């Protein structure tokens, strides 16, 4: 951490003996800490490895959960199912973001004339946040076709997607609303005093700040949605986890589940990194006094 800079016309800085000793001591401390951390990690790893592989049931566990043969069988089918998850995630995710934002704005409208809109939006979020997703899915997927309405699809995937949008919009609306309400009133006041209409204030001042603040919780909901797309399989469509279950219950082997689990984790990690990067970039721009 020392800084040896010689500027013309200045005394050259010579660190004192004490300072050099202190720094040496600090470096030694850091080295030792790293060494201890590495050793303890290694020991923990070895102990866990021995504990797991030494357990009496390990052979059967390995055969049941980590069978290379079943992993090979399962992977193509799991990936085929994953395509359904990804399509659902893309379509439902966009719909949820749009509808959730609309609900949040509806809940934060000011003025007595908007009371019915506020009340409706509040009732909607209360109801669909509380309703268990699986019940919402069952109602929509099996209830809607039972009505035998003309012109309404009975495609289980579309209906399942609709049910996901209904539930997740309620979650996301609350996230957006928290963001909107976290913007300091002075921002709104400043915008209005500059002559912006309330609509433009929302559009150019409040929402950009609100959305930026809630990116991490939004990503949480998106990852959660990504996993819950699998629940659409209740209506018979085959997603990644379901494809795994089909093989697992046919041959009594759990390896396909492990494969599907790893595939989902592999899908979530890049998504998280991407949002981290986006958030960091936004913060940098904000720090430079770019966007408000």
């Amino acid at each position: 951490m020392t800084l040896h800079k010689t500027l013309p016309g200045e005394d050259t800085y010579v660190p004192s003996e004490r300072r050099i000793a202190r720094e040496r001591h600090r470096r030694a401390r850091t080295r030792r800490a790293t060494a201890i951390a590495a050793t303890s990690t290694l020991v923990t790893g070895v102990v866990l490895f021995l504990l797991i592989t030494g357990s009496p049931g390990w052979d059967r566990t390995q055969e049941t959960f980590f069978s290379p043969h079943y992993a090979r069988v399962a992977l193509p089918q799991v990936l085929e199912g994953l395509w359904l998850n990804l399509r659902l995630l893309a379509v439902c995710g966009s719909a949820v973001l749009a509808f959730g934002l609309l609900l949040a704005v509806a809940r934060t409208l000011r003025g007595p004339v908007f009371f019915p809109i506020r009340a409706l939006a509040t009732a909607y979020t209360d109801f669909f946040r509380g309703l268990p997703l699986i019940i919402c899915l069952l109602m929509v997927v099996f209830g809607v076709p039972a009505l035998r309405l003309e012109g309404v699809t009975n495609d289980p995937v579309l209906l399942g997607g609709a049910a996901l949008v209904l539930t997740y919009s309620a979650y996301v609306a609350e996230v957006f609303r928290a963001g909107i309400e976290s913007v300091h009133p002075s921002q709104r006041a400043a915008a209005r005093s500059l002559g912006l209409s309330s609509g433009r204030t929302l559009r150019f001042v409040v929402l950009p700040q609100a959305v930026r603040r809630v990116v991490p919780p939004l990503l949480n909901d998106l990852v959660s949605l990504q996993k819950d797309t699998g629940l659409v399989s209740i209506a018979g469509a085959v997603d990644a986890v379901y494809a795994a279950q089909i093989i697992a219950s046919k041959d009594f082997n759990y390896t396909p589940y492990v494969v599907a689990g790893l595939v989902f984790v592999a899908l979530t990690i890049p998504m998280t990194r991407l949002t981290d990067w986006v958030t960091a970039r936004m913060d940098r721009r904000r720090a430079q006094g770019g966007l408000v």
Partner: protein
Amino acid sequence: MHLATRSLATTVTAVSSAVVLCAALTGCAPQPEEKPKASGASGRNGVTAEACAPGGLATEVEGKLTVGTDKPAYAPWFSDDEPSNGKGFESAVAYAVAKRLGYDRDAVVWQHTPFNSAFAPGAKKFDFDINQVSISESREKAVAFSSGYYDVRQAVVALKSSKAAGAKSVADLKKVKLGAQVGTTSLEFINDLVKPETKPAVYQRNDFAKSALKTGQVDAIVVDLPTAFYITGAEVPEAEVVGQFPNSADQPEQFGLVLDKESTLTSCVSGAVDALRKDGTLAALEKEWLSDAVDAPVLK
């Protein structure tokens, strides 16, 4: 420096205590895989009588026979979702097997065992599981089966009004949307024998398959024959049994009782099932509980 040594000491203590803890865990955590072997137990069929002492098997709970099945327990295999009433084919078979093994009715304890946990590798909580599980070679790597207690045939159920209702052959089903329950051989029949143009719908439970059949989300569903007749007779009267699949020539499909892979009871339970088949008990129970499942036309 003093500080550093202290932290080093703490770390060493922490790590070593973790090691000790783990060692202690290893010492007492695992369940013994080996149960005391019943003396003289031999292969699946060569059962010696003295090995299977009536009422004195090495069961999970001494003096009791714990039988697993899923919930809800469906008719006609069970009745009123109550396995312990002795009604329904599988309930009756379970009590008959128990009797053969020397356990009378009040020594039989029923236990809710979801299908997925019946084949989990850990120690089982049941002595045997009866849940319309078909015997297959790949499954025998994970669990032990008794001899088969019922020969299964798969059948197609469709609404009388649907385009699948007139099917006379397997080829006629290629163009229809089929559905089946996950983990069943019905699904394998669809994928391996019919090979339909649209992917089959796969349901977690037969209830969902029935809903989908009623609402027209699928044209036909594949279930085992007794279930098919129960559906058309009691649950979806507007549906009919279109026909049954031809049995594969080499080996008829059979339901077997599921036991833990290391179970010492397998040979005794198998012996009991074989004896019940020999003395006509199984046939009588079939007639009593599954007589509706008369023949359906075989799909060519």
